[in-house]
């Protein structure tokens, strides 16, 4: 692995400038959090928050606080926000599992989709989609992402270039069907649906793959127009919970399933840590995941230069003694960014590695944020060729931190 010297001075200054307003907001959140009464829907009270950029460069963040999902946009990289939109209260509580979060996706022509899930007492999920077709001035009421299913969790939505939304999620309709017949069924299933037309509605769901892990987030990225790629924890023969990718063909149908890595995760456990996938402009698949196997254990990265058929030898990420977790990968411009959590016994760092050669070699990791209290998972987002860390900690508030590749 090639290591580079750090180029962090200007970046830290930029980060300080950009995050200064958030520190003020964070202070407010800190007060709320300590009063254990931070129950409003304000961003400062959020437990999880997900940032994203619209095609016009407007920054958006969606979060859960006070039992509701809200979203707000900012024209100045999060220094100030327009009045938040708070979605209607739902009949069931929001999914608060370790890998659940509201998400926001953008399509052409002002199309926006916010997705989230509620859950019942048995952790059956109920995923919803909320849409805007006017750049976020107005939003629809939450619509179920599908029908005829007792549970949908870890929904992931992305827009195709033509403006149709593609949704994928972990679905339990076939679990219920098997149970009704008294047959065994391992895990759950990967389901998907496309919009019937740009600006339309999601069509009926299709099961892309039976027997996938039921308790981890999934990742969706586009390999090209009409070609979403889904990465998820599959259940291979023998109950092996290793990761796989599935690239959709030009007709929008799921292609063959390819194994990302032979972790040999023979374990009847919920890792509660799903993968992250990003596809570079050169078509390289960048994958990172948490392994809990007999061959591999920890956080790993690998890339594929042949559309996911084969992946590079998995590269161990982070210090094994520091509870490395929650990896997230982003290809932006010519660079690849990989962030993860690291805990040393007293504080959590968000560490960042970057690659300037499409994942072949990586910089040494360095900390780009830290906290001595609870925090959300790191999320990496792009505004064109620029990369940012989107991160939330109740003590410090929401942070949008600009990132630079390290030379």
């Amino acid at each position: 692995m090639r290591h580079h010297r750090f180029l962090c001075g200007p970046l830290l200054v930029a980060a300080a400038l950009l995050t200064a307003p958030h520190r003020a907001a964070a202070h407010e959140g800190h007060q709320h959090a300590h009063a254990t009464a931070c129950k409003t829907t304000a961003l400062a009270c959020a437990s999880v928050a997900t940032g994203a950029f619209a095609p016009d460069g407007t920054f958006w963040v969606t979060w859960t606080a006070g039992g509701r999902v809200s979203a707000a946009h900012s024209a100045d990289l999060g220094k100030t926000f327009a009045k938040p939109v708070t979605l209607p209260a739902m009949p069931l509580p929001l999914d608060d599992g370790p890998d659940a979060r509201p998400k926001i996706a953008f399509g052409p022509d002002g199309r926006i989709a916010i997705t989230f899930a509620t859950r019942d007492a048995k952790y059956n999920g109920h995923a919803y989609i909320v849409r805007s077709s006017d750049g976020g001035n107005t939003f629809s009421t939450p619509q179920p992402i599908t029908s005829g299913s007792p549970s949908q969790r870890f929904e992931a939505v992305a827009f195709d270039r033509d403006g149709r939304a593609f949704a994928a999620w972990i679905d339990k309709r076939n679990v219920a069907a098997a149970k009704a017949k008294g047959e065994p069924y391992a895990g759950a299933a990967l389901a998907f649906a496309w919009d019937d037309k740009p600006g339309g509605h999601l069509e009926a769901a299709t099961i892309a793959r039976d027997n996938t892990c039921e308790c981890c987030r999934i990742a969706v990225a586009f390999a090209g127009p009409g070609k979403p790629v889904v990465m998820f924890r599959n259940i291979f023969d023998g109950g092996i919970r290793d990761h796989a990718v599935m690239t959709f063909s030009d007709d929008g149908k799921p292609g063959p399933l390819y194994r990302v890595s032979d972790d040999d995760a023979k374990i009847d456990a919920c890792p509660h840590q799903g993968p992250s996938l990003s596809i570079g402009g050169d078509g390289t698949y960048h994958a990172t995941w948490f392994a809990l196997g007999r061959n591999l254990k920890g956080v790993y990265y690998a890339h594929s230069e042949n559309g996911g058929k084969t992946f590079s030898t998995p590269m161990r990420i982070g210090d094994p003694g520091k509870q490395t977790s929650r990896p997230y990968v982003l290809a932006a411009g010519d660079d690849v960014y990989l962030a993860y959590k690291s805990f040393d016994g007293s504080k959590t760092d968000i560490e960042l590695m970057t690659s300037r050669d499409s994942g072949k070699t990586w910089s040494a990791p360095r900390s780009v944020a830290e906290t001595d209290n609870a925090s959300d998972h790191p999320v990496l987002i792009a505004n064109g060729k620029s990369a940012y860390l989107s991160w939330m900690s109740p003590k410090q508030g929401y942070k949008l931190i600009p990132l630079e590749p390290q030379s």
Partner: protein
Amino acid sequence: MARTRTAVIALALSWIALQPAYAENVPHPFDNTSWQALLGTHKGRPVIVHFWGFSCGNCMVELKDWGTFAKAHPDAVIAFVNWDRRGADSARITSALDKAGLGSVQSYVLANGFEEKLRFAVDHDWMGELPYTRLIAGDGTATTFSGAADFTKLSQWLDGQGQR
């Protein structure tokens, strides 16, 4: 009429009084001090600490097997720590454990706060997967079961500790 009302109230009160299992087994918050306190209280004795969650299907499937195990080893020190993030409902924990025959185990619920730190204190290598079981021998030696428990091995471990 008044007599009937009094009788109903008396019956209700006696029903409430007959619910000691629920009253006794309200889960304690599992915070910064809990792990050491748990081990310290039972120093010299083997302790089985099982981490579980409603968010974990495998945990719920094996809960009744844990109930059978606890019944077969009435003298064993067994603690159940609910590790659902952002706090599970205490009444639901008590009800689920009681239903599985685990009404007498020591029950804890993950306190709100710095989950990473609490987990690190339990085991530096624990990545948060559930179910997860930590066996602490009388001499302090720790053994870990990540994933569903193997009750045969668990019994063997306990037998090796001089507990039945």
